[in-house]
């Protein structure tokens, strides 16, 4: 990437239910945390890229840019996307093109304000025909799991291992979140709890296999490489943001067991960044479900297709804080992932980037995976819909 954009500060709110707060209060909190940490003033911002998946539906806010303008008293260009990764990608393009030097990238979502209808909204927007026939936001994940089991002919002990491995994904992510003060669920869970929830629901995946409904906001300051060191000693460079798109209708896709959009985005991100897969030590996966984390490990090339469950099962038998992939450590979802950190759609990607930023700078406190010098590159995967859009971002200290 030429004229590399650099992240100089990040901020976020706690994810969870923010009953008493307006959406703008959440983004204000995230933005203030970020700007304070790098000493930037709002007047330094030349543009704002905000993301929210469906504030117009949940909060009847149709012109999000307007309230951000009021909040910052800025009249600079502002654009809205659906995910932080999408906002980041657009912001990166502008900085690379030399249009702006310093911009704000933020995300916000307030899902609990529409608690009683949120699952209908999610499903209708994600895959309308499936919604019309009775699908829930959970069912496509379960169908993908069925497709995976059939594709790789898993049965007997292998199938038991897959089921356990998926439970372990949730257990691991909850364990990570116990050290994350911003996480929605800062409590550990057990494999037994995950399995019992599946039994209660009589489904392949249960309550503990899915990310929750959340409110929250995240923000980051992005600046041109030439300006980065003026704002921080330790900028984190965006080496690549790549994206790919797939059919809205999950049932119409060729491969029902994987996400082709993730595969393409990852391939392009590696090419653009010139980073070797082996040098990525940190990954933030879009675990809307435990199944999605497992499949993404394969789609991103960390595991061979059809093998991630074995790797997870082996790594989690005696979990040491990372997945053991081909003899190497892969730190995955150190913030607790979407499962435990929370999943306020439009802000989620910001929390993923927040985690990588902190880890690469050695500022993750109790969660710090290893001394930052040992951590090469970090990579974040974000999905919109059920794999309809995939974004892969690669970050590094150089």
């Amino acid at each position: 990437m030429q004229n590399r954009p650099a992240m100089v500060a990040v901020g976020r709110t706690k994810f969870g239910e923010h009953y008493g707060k307006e959406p703008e209060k959440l983004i204000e909190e995230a933005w203030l945390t970020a700007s304070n940490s790098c000493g930037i003033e709002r007047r330094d911002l030349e543009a704002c890229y905000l993301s929210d998946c469906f504030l117009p539906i949940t909060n009847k806010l149709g012109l999000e840019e307007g309230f951000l303008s009021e909040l910052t008293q800025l009249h600079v260009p502002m654009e809205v996307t659906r995910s932080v990764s999408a906002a980041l990608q657009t912001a990166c393009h502008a900085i690379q093109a030399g249009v702006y030097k310093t911009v704000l990238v933020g995300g916000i979502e307030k899902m609990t304000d529409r608690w009683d209808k949120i699952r209908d909204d999610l499903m209708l927007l994600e895959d309308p025909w499936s919604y019309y026939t009775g699908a829930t936001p959970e069912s496509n994940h379960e169908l993908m799991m069925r497709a995976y089991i059939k594709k790789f002919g898993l049965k007997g002990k292998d199938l038991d291992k897959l089921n356990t491995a998926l439970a372990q994904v949730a257990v691991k992510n909850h364990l990570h979140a116990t050290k994350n003060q911003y996480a929605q669920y800062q409590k550990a869970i057990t494999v037994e709890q995950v399995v019992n929830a599946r039994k209660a629901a009589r489904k392949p995946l249960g309550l503990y296999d899915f990310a929750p409904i959340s409110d929250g906001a995240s923000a980051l300051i992005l600046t041109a490489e030439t300006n980065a060191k003026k704002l921080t000693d330790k900028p984190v460079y965006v080496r690549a943001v790549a994206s790919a798109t797939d059919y809205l209708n999950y049932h119409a896709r060729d491969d029902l067991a994987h996400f082709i959009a993730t595969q393409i985005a990852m391939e392009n991100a590696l090419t653009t960044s010139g980073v070797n897969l082996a040098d990525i030590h940190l990954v933030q996966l879009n675990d809307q479900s435990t199944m999605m984390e497992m499949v993404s490990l394969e789609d991103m090339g960390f595991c061979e297709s059809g093998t991630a469950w074995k790797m997870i099962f082996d790594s989690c038998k005696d979990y040491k804080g990372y997945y053991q992939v081909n003899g190497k450590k892969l730190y995955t979802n150190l913030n607790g992932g979407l499962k435990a950190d929370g999943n306020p759609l439009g802000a989620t990607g910001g929390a993923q980037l927040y985690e990588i930023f902190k880890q690469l700078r050695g500022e993750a406190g109790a969660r710090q995976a290893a001394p930052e010098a040992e951590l090469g590159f970090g990579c974040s995967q974000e999905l919109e819909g059920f794999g309809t859009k995939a974004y892969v971002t690669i970050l590094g200290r150089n």
Partner: protein
Amino acid sequence: MSSEPIERRVSYLGDRLKASRCTICGKEYFEIRDYCSNCGRKSYMKMAAADLFYDKGKLELCTLVSEPTNKFTKLESFVYGIISFHGGKIRVPGRLTDRIIKDGETVDFASLEGKEVVPRFRRRCSVSKSDVVPTISLTFTLADQYYPHREYNVLPPNKDSELPGIVGYGVYTSRFRTKEGGIERAVPFIDEDAVTAAVEAGKTALIHSALDSSLVGKVYVGSESNPYAVKPIASKVAQVLKLGEEDGDVQGVDAVDTEFACKAGTSMFKDAAALVSYQRSGVKYAMVIAADNSQAAPRGCPGGELDMFVGYGGAAFIFGKQDVIAEIEGWYSVTSDTPDFWRRDGETFPMHGGRFTGDPAYFKHVRKASSKLMERYNLKAGDINYFVPHQPNPAFPVRVAKELGFKEEQYACSLQVNRFGNTYSGCSPVGLAAVLDVAKPEERILVASYGSGAGSDAYLLRTTSLLLEKRQRQKMNVKYMNENPFIEYVDYNTYRRLKLGM
């Protein structure tokens, strides 16, 4: 409030399962496409229709929905999955219907995956009482259970008939029954209603007749349980079954609903016959459907006596002057203003006049219409092979048949009230279908419907040799539905819940 245009578009594609196929590369799509994404511009005007409505699919993947989204909560739990058609060329999402999943019951997904399924026309989801009723055919049942897959093979008409008559028929009722007081009654599944039964019966009639649906120029639907006070069932039937010539999204057919309590359908037999006989009408075939999700107040409430007898189902008959299986030799109708049973506008359940529904109502009118018709054609009870009376309960039809001089063997096979319950408009038509299922050529059938309010239509039919030839196509006949091993019996509370619908 749902969006009417969205509703219309979803139903337009989803009711008929409209699909398209690229005639260049063969790729198929579940939707109407002007272009193929593979072939691009050169495929313009080269896309062919490939509706899945009469096809059978394969359940590829499935899971259980035990916590549905808001509009599906009345279904409680159901199996949801992905269904493929045409060897995997098209995949669609779908819900398995006609299955009550009990609390704690587990579903073995692996054993269901790979099974063949048949699309069913059903209500899509719940809406508020003032909204458009959403429908869809992305609901499926297993092909090896109650509802089999039947091919719809169109054959050109071949034999002219002097008299108009029935050229095809179909009966539809659900796989659920309730058994009580010595009789069995059909109970709709929660996503069924008079509209879905009308469409399914019409579909069966088209399959049985092998008639090109575009030749049907008029459709009448008689019902007293239309979910709408204003909006015809017939328009849905015409659209889904593609009656009349298709031009864009409009069908070249006249469609109308009729109402006269339980004779709303039978009353139109003569109109259909007359229409196809009037050459300048341009209508070669007319379809009459009679279907009801028979309404009754809960037991113990005013009108609750009906709750012992109400059923669910309907029948469709196609009339024409070619390839006739039963000619209409004559008819006689009687009417008097007798309010023995009624439902006021805005009321959910009908009321009835108790003991006055018998002698001054049912018996008087049925007796009069039947005897006048026999008199007109100089026939005695013994000259008629089958008598099909309206059957609101098991006792009335037997009594009227005996009074008219019919013997048990003449009316027994038409009596379906013990199996389906009183299907209101569908009642005597289902009885007629049961007779057509077993009659031999050159036999005489006397049908006498009854509609409260009150009136009766009596018809004299004479079967032809084509009856036997077409019978091979009638896979889902009355006997099949009565003796099906997949019938599921439900208790009183479940019956009330299912009947109330989504």
